[in-house]
């Protein structure tokens, strides 16, 4: 099973790749809406990519109020 740190790192790498932001510019506590420059439709795209990557189902209401990578990783880790 993945560690929390591995999950977080994979999220950061996936976000960097798909939203074309250099990986080194993303930090765990960054606001991903701001840092990736995404709106809610693109956030849903990120959610779908994460669900497909980790093979989990993450109801979108669990993302309510979540805007940083670390908390997002915690939510996913709880479903692994």
């Amino acid at each position, binding site marked *: 099973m993945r560690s929390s740190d591995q999950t977080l790192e994979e999220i950061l790498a996936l976000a960097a790749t798909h939203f074309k932001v250099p990986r080194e510019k993303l930090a765990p506590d960054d606001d991903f809406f701001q840092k990736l420059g995404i709106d*809610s439709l693109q956030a*849903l*795209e990120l959610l*779908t990519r994460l669900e497909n990557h980790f093979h989990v189902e993450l*109801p979108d209401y669990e993302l*309510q109020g979540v805007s940083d990578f670390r908390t997002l990783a915690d939510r996913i880790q709880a479903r692994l």
Partner: protein
Amino acid sequence: MEAEITERLQGEALSWELKEGVVELALHRQPANEIGTLMLNELEMFIGALKCLEDQACALIIHSQLPAGFSAGADLRELYEKSRPLPAEERSRQVRLFLQRIHRVLNCIDASPLTTIAAVHGVTFGGGFELALTCDLIIADKMARFCFPELRLGLIPGFGGIPRLKRDLGNGIVRDLLLTGRSLNAQKAATVGLVSQLVGEGEALRVARATAAQLCKFDRRTAIAAKKFIKPIPLEELRREIDIFCELFAQPAVEEGLRRFVQNSTAQPYLP
């Protein structure tokens, strides 16, 4: 001239074309194929043409040309702006008229003798999901998401979503989608039987075309008889849905919910 208009039309919100026995209806109203007056007007034009197209075709594919997805559903901004200045009774009357028009369109697609395929990707929400549900098959790329977010606004889906979803799926998953308002990814949608083919990113239209080419080999009369037998239109429930929607629409909570959505300047209006 008339035949040319029927076989091909480039509208503002959608276009259609008849090619080798397959009608392709492409949605392209920015930003995410919201279904408001413009889309409805053009869907009605399409339905007018469909009667002629049905004699020349065997399949209909509905897809989106926009990267955001198939459709984000009803145009909530238009609904809010148009209904806000009206007295409550008139507001309710206008909504009912809109719903009756969209139901006529969706019932025609649902009952069409053509075999119908929704090729979906990205956001397939609310009214967009309801449009997909009129089709015989849903082919989804793995980035598609399905959702009925209406309860967040104090409403139920109004374009026939619940009766059609109930027709296709078990009541448990219908309640889950409706009562939680959560979105399902394409993988889950395929697992519960909503999606007939799950395909790679960007592949839904190609696979829909290949599927249409295959089913066009079958005898049309047999295909029509099979569809009629297996796919009843839940007309009574569809009528009741309009009544319930209009009753709920008159509640003050709905105006407040719409106002919140329209005035939401954060990046999150499509999230719960």
